[in-house]
């Protein structure tokens, strides 16, 4: 096989993986802090895509949609935490999971009522239409943009977590929420903000994926399974794990699609099963907490 073709497919995989990374990151950050797995994450990803599409057509610019949708949906996520999730702290770990599952039913059906059941095309922003000549082949501009944007978001997140006071509180809160409260930190507000951030990342993933996939009410269910696979491979609660596993899954899907297209949807699950057999806690997970 042609080497340049493989490299192009690799790039495709990285673009695919970048969206997975952003989505799985939202899931894993919320789990690391709150110990909650959000089953409505896929539905919120889908709502993010719809919100981005709606805001883009309202303002006439993709960029406003890209900026505003994650903020608005993130605020909506904070409302969910405040009204619903907060009541379940201290109850069985299964309860938030069950509640958010019910919530995803409401969200998906709500979108069907407002926007209808059929898929809607999400136009690529005019500045990013077309392909770029990379010397060895042509690559869609939009996908290069997605890779670059995700890299920037990751860098900002990492700097915030490692270098700022807020990041310090967040990291300490994940270790021991009780001590943080004793030290005078309102941990409830930190949790609220983190849940909002997690949901905002899901929405960002949705907007970014919009022009690459078709936007429809069911798009969240596939994404939820993908995000689960990525977080399980990377290790639940691990940010580095989400990044590595997201890229790994994206690249595997693309490369397998090249050689055996019918196996493309199956390969990530096989990857997960193998990782679980060797390291039940995931590549970067901490043993004892979940496995």
């Amino acid at each position, binding site marked *: 096989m042609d080497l340049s073709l493989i490299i192009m497919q690799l790039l495709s995989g990285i673009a695919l993986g970048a969206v997975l990374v952003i989505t799985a990151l939202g899931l894993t950050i919320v*789990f690391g802090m709150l110990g909650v*797995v959000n089953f409505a994450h896929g539905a919120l990803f889908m709502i993010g895509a719809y919100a981005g599409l709606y805001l883009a057509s309202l303002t006439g610019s993709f960029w406003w949609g890209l900026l505003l949708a994650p903020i608005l949906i993130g605020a909506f996520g904070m409302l969910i935490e405040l009204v*619903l999730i907060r*009541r*379940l702290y201290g109850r069985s*770990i*299964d*309860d938030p*999971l*069950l*509640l958010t*599952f*019910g*919530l*995803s*039913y*409401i969200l*998906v*059906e*709500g979108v*069907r*009522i407002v926007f209808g059941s059929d898929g809607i095309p999400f136009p690529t922003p005019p500045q990013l239409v077309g392909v770029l000549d990379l010397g060895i082949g042509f690559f869609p501009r939009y996908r290069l943009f997605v890779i670059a944007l995700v890299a920037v978001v990751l860098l900002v997140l990492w700097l915030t977590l490692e270098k700022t006071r807020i990041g310090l509180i967040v990291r300490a809160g994940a270790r021991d929420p009780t001590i943080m409260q004793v030290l005078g930190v309102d941990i409830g507000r930190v949790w609220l903000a983190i849940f909002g951030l997690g949901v905002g990342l899901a929405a960002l993933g949705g907007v970014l994926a919009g022009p690459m996939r078709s936007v429809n009410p069911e798009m969240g*269910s596939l994404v*939820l*399974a993908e995000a*689960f*696979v990525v*977080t*399980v491979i990377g290790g*639940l609660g691990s940010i580095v794990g989400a990044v590595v596993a997201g890229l790994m899954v994206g690249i595997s899907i693309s490369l397998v699609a090249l050689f055996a297209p*019918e*196996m493309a*949807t*199956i390969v990530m*699950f*096989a990857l*997960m*099963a193998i990782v*679980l*057999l060797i390291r*039940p806690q995931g590549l970067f997970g901490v043993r004892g907490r*979940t*496995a």
Partner: protein
Amino acid sequence: MTSPSSGEAVAKPSSSGLGWILEQRVLLSIAVLAVLPWLLPSQALAVNVLIYGVVVMGYNLLFGYTGLLSFGQAAFFGAGAYFTGIAIGRYGVPWFAAVPIAVLLSTGLAAAIGIVSTRTRGIYFSMVTLALAQLVYYVALQASSFTGGENGLRGFTVDRINLFGFPVNFLDPVNKYYVLMAFAALAMWFQSRILNSPFGAVIEAIRENEQRARACGYDVERSKLIVFMLSGAISSLGGCMLALHLSIVPLDLLHYQTSGMIVMMVLLGGARSFFGPFVGAASFLILEDVISLWTPHWQIFVGAIFVLFVLFLPKGIWGTLLDTLGIGKARP
């Protein structure tokens, strides 16, 4: 609640009224199911309650009694249905042989998924079972020469069956209901046997305190795998019943939305009670029927009701009723 230290209390219920109910729960449940077609507005609804009741009952063994929240039960429900259909339609196996073959193969699938998933705990287990069940879904989608792919499996209609020399018209809804009820009765008897056995006490001990069960010398990993397989076997029987009933197997049966529906049903009815799964299946299906009469968007209401149950009525309809009547301990 049964503590593992008083294991005999589970196996030998007292002769009081409470114990009598516990002892007769299988017969009582069968009696209720026998009159169900005349209690519900339609025969079709009664058959569905029967089928989903069995599926959810099997799932309850895993979630209610062992405390393992799986989001992949649809894999076994679907496997039971597909294996039955493939055995009858493709290999010409008679229906009464196709059912045990399908249950056996589905149990094998449960063993494979169980080996991977029972290595994980807590939330991880829920995510891994969901992912592995989706794997089964995609395999069924791709292997379309066997499964019919997106169109579902067709071409294995069972219209006339021979019951010990008596020909029975299987297309008649009443006949069909009672033939399928025999399977349900068998499943209930089997489930009751498991729960009354020492193994039943072990799985409840694992739910209450995994570490203590381990310290008591029980092999927690092996018990989890066994209960995963038993649960899959019972749920797959529900799949066999569905295949015989519908004569087609829709691909959606394997989707994780079906797993979610099973979770909803067990919670609506009441996890960790014997008859709760049937109450849950009936409530869910009636809700769906009633609400979809005046709006196609019934899922938004079912979702909202489910959220309210998680928040305010986590023991479900049947579980709360038993508690209110004061017979909650026996959990019939």
